[in-house]
C-alpha cells in the first residue's frame, strides 16, 4: 500500500469521509461506558465526596489539550519541511478543537477548584501555563484569519505553533518544577496512584475524547479541503459538489 498517496487532498478527502463514522461511533460508545463508570459505578471519594467526579471530564480534556497542540505543531513542522499542503490543512483543522479542549479543561478545573481548594482560580504555574495554551490556540486561529494568502498563513501558523510547543512540557512538568496549588500527576508512564475503577473511568473517557477529536478534526479538514481546493477538477466531480 502506498501511504504517500494519502498526502494529497484528493485521495485523503474520501478516506477521511470513510473513517469519520468509525471514530464518531467509537467515541459515542466510549462516552456512554465512561459516563456509566464515572457517574454510577465509581464510588464516592473519601476526601472530596462527589466533587471528584469532575475528574472524568477534566483530566481527559486537559490531556487532549496538550496532545492536540503537539499534533498541530507536528503537522506544522511537516508542512514547513516538505511543503505538503494537506499537513497545513490538518494543523488548521486541529486548532479549534484544541482550543475547545483547553477551554473545557480550564472551566472544569475552575469548578473543581472552588469546592476543593476554596477558589475558582489561582495564578499558579499549572493554571497559568494552561491559560497560555488557550491563548496560543486562539493566537494561531487569529493569525490565520489575519493573513489573506493561505500559503503564507500556513507558514506563519506553523512557526507560531512550533514556537508555542515549548509551553507543553512546561504545563506537564509545572507541578514538579514549581510549588503549585494544583496537585501533582496521579497517573504517569510509571504508574498510577488512583483506585483502579476511577482510573478505568478516566482512561475510557480519555479514549472517548481522543476518538471524538479525531472524528471532528477529520470532518473539519474535509471542509477545509473543499474550501481550499475550489476549482480543482476532482472536487467538481464529487457528488456533493457537482451541480444537481
Amino acid at each position, binding site marked *: 500500500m502506498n501511504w504517500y498517496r494519502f498526502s494529497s487532498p484528493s485521495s485523503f478527502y474520501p478516506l477521511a469521509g470513510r473513517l469519520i463514522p468509525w471514530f464518531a461511533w467509537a467515541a459515542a460508545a466510549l462516552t456512554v461506558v465512561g459516563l456509566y463508570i464515572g457517574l454510577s459505578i465509581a464510588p464516592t471519594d473519601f476526601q472530596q465526596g462527589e*466533587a471528584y467526579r*469532575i475528574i472524568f471530564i477534566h483530566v481527559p480534556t486537559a490531556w487532549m489539550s496538550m496532545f492536540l497542540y503537539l499534533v498541530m505543531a507536528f503537522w506544522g513542522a511537516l508542512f514547513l519541511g516538505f511543503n505538503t499542503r494537506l499537513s497545513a490543512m490538518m494543523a488548521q483543522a486541529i486548532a479549534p*478543537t484544541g482550543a475547545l479542549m483547553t477551554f473545557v479543561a480550564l472551566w472544569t478545573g475552575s469548578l473543581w477548584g472552588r469546592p476543593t481548594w476554596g477558589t475558582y482560580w489561582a495564578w499558579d504555574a499549572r493554571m497559568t501555563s494552561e491559560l497560555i495554551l488557550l491563548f496560543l490556540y486562539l493566537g494561531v486561529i487569529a493569525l490565520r484569519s489575519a493573513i489573506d494568502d493561505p500559503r503564507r498563513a500556513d507558514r506563519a501558523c506553523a512557526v507560531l505553533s512550533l514556537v508555542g510547543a515549548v509551553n507543553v512540557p512546561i504545563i506537564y512538568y509545572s507541578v514538579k518544577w514549581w510549588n503549585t496549588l494544583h496537585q501533582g500527576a496521579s497517573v504517569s508512564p510509571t504508574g498510577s496512584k488512583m483506585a483502579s475503577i476511577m482510573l478505568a473511568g478516566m482512561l475510557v473517557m480519555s479514549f472517548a475524547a481522543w476518538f471524538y477529536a479525531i472524528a*471532528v478534526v477529520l470532518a473539519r479538514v474535509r471542509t477545509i479541503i473543499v474550501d481550499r481546493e475550489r476549482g480543482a477538477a476532482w472536487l*467538481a466531480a464529487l457528488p456533493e459538489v457537482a451541480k444537481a
Partner: protein
Amino acid sequence: MSQFFAMGGYGFYVWGAYGVAALVVIAEILSVRSKRRATLAEARLAAPTELGR
C-alpha cells in the same frame, strides 16, 4: 434520583462541569456541520456548469 442530581451537595460544580462540556461538544459538531454545508454550497456555485453534464 434527586440524590444523584444533588451529588452530595456538589451538584452545581459537577453538573456545571459536565453540562458545559456537553454544550461545547454539541456546539462544535453543529458548527462543523453548518460550515460544511455553507462551503459545499459555495463550491457548487464555483463548479463549472458544463462538467459532467
